[in-house]
Protein backbone atom coordinates (compact mmCIF):
# COMPACT_ATOMS: atom_id res chain seq x y z
CA UNK A 1 0.00 0.00 0.00
CA UNK A 2 1.53 3.30 -1.01
CA UNK A 3 1.12 6.69 0.57
CA UNK A 4 0.39 9.81 -1.47
CA UNK A 5 1.84 13.08 -0.17
CA UNK A 6 0.96 16.47 -1.65
CA UNK A 7 3.33 19.38 -1.25
CA UNK A 8 1.14 22.46 -1.42
CA UNK A 9 1.01 26.12 -0.36
CA UNK A 10 -1.35 28.23 -2.43
CA UNK A 11 1.20 31.00 -2.76
CA UNK A 12 3.97 30.70 -5.33
CA UNK A 13 7.68 30.91 -4.65
CA UNK A 14 7.62 29.59 -1.09
CA UNK A 15 9.58 26.42 -1.86
CA UNK A 16 7.14 23.72 -3.00
CA UNK A 17 9.34 22.31 -5.74
CA UNK A 18 12.49 22.56 -3.62
CA UNK A 19 10.62 20.72 -0.86
CA UNK A 20 9.16 18.08 -3.19
CA UNK A 21 12.61 17.31 -4.59
CA UNK A 22 14.31 17.33 -1.17
CA UNK A 23 11.56 15.31 0.50
CA UNK A 24 11.36 12.70 -2.26
CA UNK A 25 15.15 12.34 -2.27
CA UNK A 26 15.10 12.03 1.52
CA UNK A 27 12.57 9.21 1.37
CA UNK A 28 14.64 7.45 -1.30
CA UNK A 29 17.76 7.86 0.84
CA UNK A 30 15.87 6.10 3.62
CA UNK A 31 15.43 3.18 1.21
CA UNK A 32 11.82 3.69 0.15
CA UNK A 33 10.71 3.30 -3.43
CA UNK A 34 9.61 6.85 -4.18
CA UNK A 35 8.06 8.66 -7.14
CA UNK A 36 7.75 12.41 -7.42
CA UNK A 37 5.25 13.96 -9.85
CA UNK A 38 5.23 17.49 -11.24
CA UNK A 39 1.61 18.73 -11.43
CA UNK A 40 2.57 22.14 -12.80
CA UNK A 41 1.48 21.59 -16.39
CA UNK A 42 2.83 24.34 -18.63
CA UNK A 43 5.42 25.49 -16.09
CA UNK A 44 7.50 22.38 -15.58
CA UNK A 45 10.37 22.88 -13.14
CA UNK A 46 10.76 19.81 -10.96
CA UNK A 47 12.95 18.21 -13.66
CA UNK A 48 15.32 21.17 -13.41
CA UNK A 49 15.52 21.06 -9.61
CA UNK A 50 16.08 17.29 -9.76
CA UNK A 51 18.73 17.74 -12.45
CA UNK A 52 17.11 15.49 -15.06
CA UNK A 53 15.82 18.13 -17.49
CA UNK A 54 17.76 16.70 -20.43
CA UNK A 55 16.33 13.24 -19.97
CA UNK A 56 12.65 14.19 -20.35
CA UNK A 57 11.09 12.38 -23.30
CA UNK A 58 7.48 11.77 -22.32
CA UNK A 59 5.47 13.46 -19.59
CA UNK A 60 2.50 13.14 -17.24
CA UNK A 61 -0.03 14.31 -19.87
CA UNK A 62 1.37 11.84 -22.45
CA UNK A 63 0.69 9.04 -19.98
CA UNK A 64 -2.82 10.30 -19.19
CA UNK A 65 -3.62 10.50 -22.92
CA UNK A 66 -2.20 7.06 -23.61
CA UNK A 67 0.56 8.45 -25.85
CA UNK A 68 3.23 6.81 -23.69
CA UNK A 69 3.35 4.18 -20.99
CA UNK A 70 4.13 5.13 -17.43
CA UNK A 71 7.48 3.34 -17.64
CA UNK A 72 8.45 5.32 -20.73
CA UNK A 73 7.71 8.61 -18.99
CA UNK A 74 9.27 7.88 -15.59
CA UNK A 75 12.86 9.10 -15.23
CA UNK A 76 14.96 7.06 -12.85
CA UNK A 77 17.24 9.20 -10.68
CA UNK A 78 20.93 8.65 -11.43
CA UNK A 79 21.94 9.02 -7.78
CA UNK A 80 19.24 6.81 -6.25
CA UNK A 81 17.70 4.11 -8.39
CA UNK A 82 14.69 3.76 -6.05
CA UNK A 83 13.62 7.33 -6.95
CA UNK A 84 11.71 8.20 -10.12
CA UNK A 85 10.46 11.48 -11.52
CA UNK A 86 7.33 12.00 -13.59
CA UNK A 87 7.73 15.37 -15.33
CA UNK A 88 4.88 17.71 -16.19
CA UNK A 89 4.06 18.63 -19.74
CA UNK A 90 5.56 21.92 -20.83
CA UNK A 91 3.43 22.50 -23.91
CA UNK A 92 -0.09 21.43 -22.96
CA UNK A 93 -2.48 23.53 -20.92
CA UNK A 94 -3.68 22.83 -17.41
CA UNK A 95 -6.96 21.39 -18.65
CA UNK A 96 -5.19 18.30 -19.97
CA UNK A 97 -5.14 16.92 -16.45
CA UNK A 98 -8.32 14.99 -15.76
CA UNK A 99 -9.39 13.48 -12.48
CA UNK A 100 -9.79 10.02 -14.03
CA UNK A 101 -6.42 10.29 -15.76
CA UNK A 102 -4.62 11.36 -12.59
CA UNK A 103 -6.31 8.59 -10.63
CA UNK A 104 -5.26 6.00 -13.20
CA UNK A 105 -1.61 7.13 -13.09
CA UNK A 106 -1.55 7.24 -9.28
CA UNK A 107 -3.06 3.75 -9.09
CA UNK A 108 -0.44 2.41 -11.46
CA UNK A 109 2.36 4.14 -9.54
CA UNK A 110 1.15 2.71 -6.24
CA UNK A 111 1.71 -0.81 -7.56
CA UNK A 112 5.46 -0.11 -7.58
CA UNK A 113 6.17 2.80 -5.25
CA UNK A 114 5.82 3.11 -1.48
CA UNK A 115 5.64 6.89 -1.48
CA UNK A 116 4.27 9.18 -4.18
CA UNK A 117 5.11 12.86 -3.74
CA UNK A 118 2.90 15.28 -5.67
CA UNK A 119 4.48 18.67 -6.36
CA UNK A 120 1.52 21.04 -6.59
CA UNK A 121 1.53 24.21 -8.70
CA UNK A 122 0.74 27.52 -7.01
CA UNK A 123 -2.83 28.74 -7.02
CA UNK A 124 -6.09 26.86 -6.54
CA UNK A 125 -6.82 25.84 -10.10
CA UNK A 126 -7.01 22.43 -11.77
CA UNK A 127 -3.40 21.31 -11.27
CA UNK A 128 -3.36 22.31 -7.61
CA UNK A 129 -6.72 20.79 -6.74
CA UNK A 130 -5.90 17.55 -8.56
CA UNK A 131 -2.49 17.31 -6.88
CA UNK A 132 -4.22 17.29 -3.49
CA UNK A 133 -7.39 15.40 -4.41
CA UNK A 134 -6.04 11.88 -3.90
CA UNK A 135 -3.57 12.73 -1.12
CA UNK A 136 -3.22 10.88 2.18
CA UNK A 137 -0.86 13.48 3.67
CA UNK A 138 -0.31 17.15 2.93
CA UNK A 139 2.84 19.14 3.57
CA UNK A 140 1.79 22.79 3.66
CA UNK A 141 4.87 24.84 2.78
CA UNK A 142 4.69 28.27 4.40
CA UNK A 143 7.01 31.26 4.64
CA UNK A 144 6.89 33.35 7.81
CA UNK A 145 5.16 36.14 5.92
CA UNK A 146 1.55 37.35 5.95
CA UNK A 147 0.40 36.44 2.43
CA UNK A 148 1.93 32.98 2.61
CA UNK A 149 0.31 32.21 5.98
CA UNK A 150 -3.06 33.41 4.75
CA UNK A 151 -2.84 31.33 1.57
CA UNK A 152 -1.81 28.28 3.59
CA UNK A 153 -4.93 28.63 5.69
CA UNK A 154 -6.99 28.84 2.52
CA UNK A 155 -5.37 25.61 1.29
CA UNK A 156 -6.26 23.92 4.58
CA UNK A 157 -9.89 24.77 3.92
CA UNK A 158 -9.69 23.23 0.45
CA UNK A 159 -7.89 20.13 1.76
CA UNK A 160 -10.67 19.64 4.29
CA UNK A 161 -13.50 19.96 1.79
CA UNK A 162 -12.39 19.17 -1.76
CA UNK A 163 -10.33 16.01 -1.46
CA UNK A 164 -11.25 12.39 -2.09
CA UNK A 165 -10.96 11.66 1.62
CA UNK A 166 -13.32 14.53 2.46
CA UNK A 167 -15.84 13.66 -0.24
CA UNK A 168 -15.96 9.98 0.68
CA UNK A 169 -16.08 10.65 4.41
CA UNK A 170 -12.79 8.83 5.03
CA UNK A 171 -10.23 9.74 7.65
CA UNK A 172 -9.14 13.31 6.78
CA UNK A 173 -5.82 14.13 5.09
CA UNK A 174 -2.98 14.43 7.62
CA UNK A 175 -1.75 18.00 7.42
CA UNK A 176 1.77 19.09 8.30
CA UNK A 177 3.32 22.54 8.48
CA UNK A 178 6.72 23.07 6.91
CA UNK A 179 8.07 26.54 7.61
CA UNK A 180 10.68 27.53 5.02
CA UNK A 181 13.05 30.48 4.57
CA UNK A 182 13.16 30.95 8.32
CA UNK A 183 15.58 33.43 9.81
CA UNK A 184 15.97 33.14 13.62
CA UNK A 185 17.86 36.41 13.73
CA UNK A 186 15.08 38.35 12.07
CA UNK A 187 12.58 36.70 14.40
CA UNK A 188 14.61 37.89 17.39
CA UNK A 189 14.65 41.41 15.96
CA UNK A 190 10.87 41.30 15.66
CA UNK A 191 11.00 41.55 11.87
CA UNK A 192 9.63 38.09 11.11
CA UNK A 193 6.81 35.90 12.39
CA UNK A 194 8.16 33.17 14.67
CA UNK A 195 7.46 29.44 14.42
CA UNK A 196 5.18 29.82 17.43
CA UNK A 197 3.29 32.70 15.79
CA UNK A 198 2.63 30.72 12.61
CA UNK A 199 1.60 27.66 14.61
CA UNK A 200 -0.75 29.80 16.73
CA UNK A 201 -2.44 31.05 13.60
CA UNK A 202 -2.61 27.84 11.57
CA UNK A 203 -2.73 25.26 14.43
CA UNK A 204 -0.90 22.64 12.42
CA UNK A 205 1.50 19.89 13.38
CA UNK A 206 5.01 21.22 12.72
CA UNK A 207 6.97 18.90 10.46
CA UNK A 208 10.03 21.11 10.38
CA UNK A 209 11.68 24.47 9.95
CA UNK A 210 14.00 25.04 6.99
CA UNK A 211 16.34 27.96 7.58
CA UNK A 212 16.93 30.61 4.92
CA UNK A 213 20.09 29.23 3.39
CA UNK A 214 22.48 29.87 0.55
CA UNK A 215 22.67 26.13 -0.02
CA UNK A 216 19.10 26.04 -1.40
CA UNK A 217 20.00 28.25 -4.36
CA UNK A 218 23.26 26.47 -5.03
CA UNK A 219 21.41 23.12 -4.90
CA UNK A 220 18.93 24.30 -7.51
CA UNK A 221 21.75 25.83 -9.57
CA UNK A 222 23.30 22.41 -9.90
CA UNK A 223 20.11 20.34 -10.04
CA UNK A 224 20.85 18.49 -6.82
CA UNK A 225 18.10 18.10 -4.22
CA UNK A 226 19.41 19.95 -1.16
CA UNK A 227 18.96 16.82 0.99
CA UNK A 228 22.09 15.44 -0.65
CA UNK A 229 24.13 18.35 0.71
CA UNK A 230 24.78 16.90 4.14
CA UNK A 231 26.98 19.81 5.21
CA UNK A 232 24.31 22.45 4.67
CA UNK A 233 21.82 23.54 7.32
CA UNK A 234 18.90 23.28 4.88
CA UNK A 235 20.00 19.80 3.80
CA UNK A 236 20.15 18.65 7.41
CA UNK A 237 16.80 20.28 8.15
CA UNK A 238 15.18 18.37 5.26
CA UNK A 239 16.74 15.11 6.48
CA UNK A 240 15.18 15.78 9.88
CA UNK A 241 11.85 16.50 8.21
CA UNK A 242 11.87 13.14 6.44
CA UNK A 243 12.77 11.29 9.65
CA UNK A 244 9.97 13.07 11.50
CA UNK A 245 7.52 12.25 8.73
CA UNK A 246 8.51 8.60 9.03
CA UNK A 247 7.68 8.69 12.74
CA UNK A 248 11.06 9.26 14.38
CA UNK A 249 11.26 11.72 17.25
CA UNK A 250 13.76 14.32 16.14
CA UNK A 251 14.17 17.61 18.03
CA UNK A 252 13.68 20.75 15.96
CA UNK A 253 16.85 22.50 14.88
CA UNK A 254 17.60 25.83 13.19
CA UNK A 255 14.82 27.51 15.16
CA UNK A 256 17.18 29.36 17.47
CA UNK A 257 20.10 31.50 16.46
CA UNK A 258 23.52 29.97 16.59
CA UNK A 259 25.40 31.08 19.67
CA UNK A 260 27.85 33.84 18.88
CA UNK A 261 30.83 35.06 20.82
CA UNK A 262 30.85 38.40 22.61
CA UNK A 263 33.02 39.93 19.93
CA UNK A 264 30.67 39.21 17.07
CA UNK A 265 27.65 40.14 19.19
CA UNK A 266 29.06 43.62 19.70
CA UNK A 267 30.66 44.30 16.38
CA UNK A 268 28.56 42.27 13.99
CA UNK A 269 29.66 39.18 12.16
Amino acid at each position, binding site marked *: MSRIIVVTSGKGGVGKTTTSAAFAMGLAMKGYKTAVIDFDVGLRNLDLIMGCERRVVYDFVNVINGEATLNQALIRDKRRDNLSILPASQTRDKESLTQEGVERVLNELSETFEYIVCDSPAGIERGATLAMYFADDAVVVTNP*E*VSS*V*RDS*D*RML*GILASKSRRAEQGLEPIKEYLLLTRYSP*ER*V*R*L*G*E*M*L*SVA*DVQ*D*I*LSLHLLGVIPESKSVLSASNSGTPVTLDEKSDAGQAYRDVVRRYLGERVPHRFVEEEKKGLFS*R*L*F*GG
Partner: protein
Amino acid sequence: MGLLDYFRSRTPNTSSASVAKERLQILVAHERSERNKPDYLPRLQRDLLEVVRRYVHVDDNAITVTMEEDGNHEVLELNIVLPEEAAAAPKPKPRQRSHPRR
Protein backbone atom coordinates in the same frame (compact mmCIF):
# COMPACT_ATOMS: atom_id res chain seq x y z
CA MET B 1 24.37 42.20 14.09
CA GLY B 2 25.76 45.10 16.03
CA LEU B 3 25.30 46.97 19.24
CA LEU B 4 22.37 49.01 17.98
CA ASP B 5 20.38 45.92 17.03
CA TYR B 6 20.71 44.71 20.58
CA PHE B 7 18.81 47.73 21.89
CA ARG B 8 16.37 47.66 19.03
CA SER B 9 15.44 44.10 19.89
CA ARG B 10 14.31 45.24 23.36
CA THR B 11 11.03 46.59 21.99
CA PRO B 12 9.17 43.49 20.88
CA ASN B 13 5.62 44.80 21.30
CA THR B 14 5.76 47.34 18.54
CA SER B 15 7.65 45.05 16.18
CA SER B 16 6.35 44.53 12.69
CA ALA B 17 6.12 40.80 13.39
CA SER B 18 3.61 41.30 16.18
CA VAL B 19 1.57 43.58 13.93
CA ALA B 20 1.63 40.84 11.29
CA LYS B 21 0.49 38.24 13.79
CA GLU B 22 -2.39 40.36 15.01
CA ARG B 23 -3.57 41.15 11.48
CA LEU B 24 -3.36 37.51 10.47
CA GLN B 25 -5.23 36.24 13.51
CA ILE B 26 -8.16 38.55 12.79
CA LEU B 27 -8.16 37.81 9.07
CA VAL B 28 -7.83 34.05 9.38
CA ALA B 29 -10.58 33.86 12.00
CA HIS B 30 -12.87 35.84 9.72
CA GLU B 31 -12.07 33.77 6.63
CA ARG B 32 -12.56 30.51 8.52
CA SER B 33 -16.01 31.59 9.65
CA GLU B 34 -16.93 32.48 6.06
CA ARG B 35 -15.61 29.14 4.86
CA ASN B 36 -18.05 27.09 6.89
CA LYS B 37 -21.10 28.91 5.63
CA PRO B 38 -23.28 27.17 3.08
CA ASP B 39 -22.90 28.76 -0.33
CA TYR B 40 -26.65 29.21 -0.79
CA LEU B 41 -26.77 32.13 1.68
CA PRO B 42 -26.48 34.90 -0.95
CA ARG B 43 -29.23 33.29 -3.05
CA LEU B 44 -31.42 32.83 0.04
CA GLN B 45 -30.91 36.49 0.84
CA ARG B 46 -31.93 37.53 -2.67
CA ASP B 47 -35.05 35.35 -2.68
CA LEU B 48 -36.13 36.54 0.76
CA LEU B 49 -35.70 40.12 -0.32
CA GLU B 50 -37.92 39.45 -3.31
CA VAL B 51 -40.69 38.03 -1.13
CA VAL B 52 -40.51 40.91 1.33
CA ARG B 53 -40.69 43.40 -1.53
CA ARG B 54 -44.07 42.06 -2.58
CA TYR B 55 -45.43 43.65 0.58
CA VAL B 56 -43.19 46.56 1.32
CA HIS B 57 -40.35 48.26 -0.44
CA VAL B 58 -37.06 47.70 1.33
CA ASP B 59 -33.52 48.55 0.35
CA ASP B 60 -31.09 46.00 -1.06
CA ASN B 61 -28.89 46.34 1.97
CA ALA B 62 -31.74 46.36 4.46
CA ILE B 63 -31.60 42.60 4.76
CA THR B 64 -28.84 40.52 6.33
CA VAL B 65 -28.66 36.77 6.61
CA THR B 66 -26.04 35.36 8.95
CA MET B 67 -25.17 31.89 10.03
CA GLU B 68 -23.61 31.35 13.41
CA GLU B 69 -22.54 28.33 15.33
CA ASP B 70 -23.88 28.17 18.83
CA GLY B 71 -22.59 25.14 20.69
CA ASN B 72 -23.68 22.12 18.69
CA HIS B 73 -26.38 23.80 16.63
CA GLU B 74 -26.32 26.48 13.97
CA VAL B 75 -28.43 29.61 14.05
CA LEU B 76 -29.66 31.19 10.87
CA GLU B 77 -30.36 34.80 11.68
CA LEU B 78 -32.48 36.94 9.42
CA ASN B 79 -32.56 40.68 9.91
CA ILE B 80 -34.81 42.97 7.87
CA VAL B 81 -34.96 46.69 8.52
CA LEU B 82 -38.35 47.98 7.44
CA PRO B 83 -38.62 51.54 6.19
CA GLU B 84 -40.26 54.04 8.53
CA GLU B 85 -43.24 54.84 6.31
CA ALA B 86 -44.07 51.21 5.71
CA ALA B 87 -47.81 51.52 6.10
CA ALA B 88 -48.56 47.95 5.14
CA ALA B 89 -46.71 46.23 7.92
CA PRO B 90 -46.55 46.78 11.68
CA LYS B 91 -43.36 48.52 12.57
CA PRO B 92 -41.86 48.08 15.98
CA LYS B 93 -38.55 49.56 14.86
CA PRO B 94 -36.90 51.95 14.54
CA ARG B 95 -38.05 53.63 17.72
CA GLN B 96 -37.55 57.36 18.08
CA ARG B 97 -36.25 58.94 21.20
CA SER B 98 -37.86 62.18 22.22
CA HIS B 99 -34.75 63.27 24.12
CA PRO B 100 -31.73 62.17 22.22
CA ARG B 101 -28.70 61.76 24.44
CA ARG B 102 -25.56 63.63 23.70
